[in-house]
């Protein structure tokens, strides 16, 4: 290795491609399910709280939008610890939707987001169709809300705890209820832990969702070999991070191929600008960055900058040009 000259990444300027255009001329704006966003970089629910903690690092209004941590009707304390375990290139979590409840959220978190002028996507969660409906109703007429993301990866107490997102009919019922309560775009957030994600996607869209968020965490497990105990109090937990990226990308591509007109917010393991490019190519109109924020608080801000450079270097005038551009082999 000694004869290999080390290159300082911060000093290295790649050779300029003859196609390159000026960065200032690159248009990052996208349309996501009717939302006009200045760029396609959003946060993932549960990985950015409601923004204020992250605003200590940079101005969070730079982001395309902030998808806040899921809010429920009632305040929730969440699950006992341990809630998290690191796994190869990923992590498991079972937080249990700890949140202050919609009433406290509306008096504290939303006003902060409004005062900053952030574009806000409110992620909502519940145990029953009525829960979702009630939360959506409370959001009605509140300013500064760009969209509602429906977290369908919640156990449905009325169906013996089966996760809504595993059933096309339960998912559709929730979306129908939320759709009736709101006039902002509704995104249905799906899980990949199903036999056929396309059939769930179709049911959710038919029920009135304006777009889909793909995907939530994958269910996983880890056991402490010495104690024999699960590493997470809840036994099973959601896997996130780079480890799930190929699965997420496959889901986006599969759904986009089957339902090319349905706007998709891609999510799962996104960390670098080339990850963003892959999701846009696979058919996402924008992306949500989750776990990567834990590793690098500045990741959202950096990806906006790097996406602009990436496009400029290749002579691409807009981020939109990339959406749904997977080139076939044959």
């Amino acid at each position, binding site marked *: 290795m000694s004869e290999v000259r080390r290159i300082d990444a911060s000093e290295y300027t790649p050779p300029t491609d003859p196609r390159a255009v000026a960065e200032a001329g690159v248009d990052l704006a996208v349309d996501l399910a009717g939302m006009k966003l200045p760029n396609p970089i959003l946060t993932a629910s549960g990985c950015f709280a409601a923004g204020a903690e992250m605003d200590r690092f940079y101005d969070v209004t730079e982001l395309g939008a902030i998808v806040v941590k899921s809010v429920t009707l009632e305040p929730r304390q969440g699950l006992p610890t341990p809630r998290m375990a690191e796994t190869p290139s990923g992590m498991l979590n079972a937080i249990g939707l700890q949140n202050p409840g919609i009433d406290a959220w509306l008096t504290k978190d939303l006003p902060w987001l409004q005062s900053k002028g952030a574009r806000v996507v409110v992620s909502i969660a519940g145990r029953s169709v009525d829960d979702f409906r009630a939360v959506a109703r409370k959001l009605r007429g509140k300013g500064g809300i760009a969209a509602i993301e429906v977290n369908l990866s919640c156990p449905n107490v009325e169906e013996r705890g089966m996760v809504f997102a595993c059933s096309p009919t339960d998912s559709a019922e929730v979306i129908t209820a939320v759709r009736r309560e709101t006039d902002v775009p509704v995104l249905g957030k799906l899980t990949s832990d199903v036999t056929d994600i396309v059939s769930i996607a179709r049911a959710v869209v038919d029920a009135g969702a304006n777009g889909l968020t793909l995907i939530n965490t994958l269910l996983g497990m880890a056991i402490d070999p010495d104690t024999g105990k699960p590493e997470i109090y809840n036994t099973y937990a959601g896997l996130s991070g780079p480890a799930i990226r190929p699965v997420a990308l496959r889901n986006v591509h599969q759904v986009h191929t089957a339902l090319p007109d349905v706007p998709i917010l891609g999510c799962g393991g996104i960390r670098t600008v080339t990850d963003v490019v892959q999701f846009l190519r696979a058919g996402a109109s924008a992306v949500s960055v989750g776990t990567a924020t834990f*590793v690098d608080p*500045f990741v959202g801000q950096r990806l906006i900058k790097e996406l602009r450079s990436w496009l400029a270097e290749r002579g691409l005038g807009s981020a939109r040009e990339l959406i749904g551009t997977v080139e076939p082999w044959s």
Partner: protein
Amino acid sequence: MSTRRAGIVEGRRDSDGPVGSTCEVLARRREGAYWLLSLAAPAIAERARPGQFVNIAVEAPGTLLRRPFSIARVSKQGIAAGTIEVVFDAHGPGTEWLTHVDLHDVIDVIGPLGNPFPLPQRKVSCLLIGGGYGAAPLFFLADELTRKGLRVDMIIGAGSLDRIPNAIEAKRITASVTFTTEDGSYGTHGRVTDVLDEVVEKCGSGVVYACGPNPMLRAVSERCEAMDLPVQVAVEEKMGCGIGVCFTCVLPISTKNGEVTMKRACVEGPVFNGARIAWDQSRYDLGAPTPTDEDDQDAPPEPERLTDSEIWGDA
């Protein structure tokens, strides 16, 4: 290993909040069973206060998350100005990786994070109790308390002598220091709580600060509560993000109106009023206490104590 340049600072420069910084490794050495890293981190050193921590990116294969470390010491002046030290135990792939960084390597650090120890608003004698490498950040606190003209005593406990960080320095910067080891290899044979009452009495301690394993913090907090002694503890919780967004590092905390809510150690701690932690709802317990010969009935009358609000103000 690192090809990044040192001294790059990201973040809001106009605040005393956390920044991201690439830091040159100035020293890496063993401290008994532990490791010490000294880092050139001017932007962090200038903002840091005792009890706060840094979150360090590790590059061990397959690891993803940063590793949090209490800031053990900071040099704000002199030739070592702008450096911070961390002391740690290598007990997993991330910390193991950190024991292999070379001098002049550049590592990626975020900090300072979390709330610092509140400093007394009154003249009061301070007792600092450290367990294992948890004693290290108390040196930073001791410097700060001494600068305020307050008396500082310490109790440092560990499994064995090699797990007592820098005993000589502890003696140098305190009015008195009492050591305990569980194997009896140094100081009193036993745990910090075995000598706590006696030290409090002897030193006239009016406030206790503690840092170390959570079962020890529980035992110290419960003993202090029984003695009506204000106690502030810096907890060690497994963290995901360290910046307040993942809700992994939570502890049950009793609020003023008696409710128990889950608070994040990274942004609402890591320093908590030890009497406010609902330890019985946590999973921390020291297990069976070491047997003592004395009976509580012979205990001397409790002295007058300052209350929390008298000591900390209305924070």
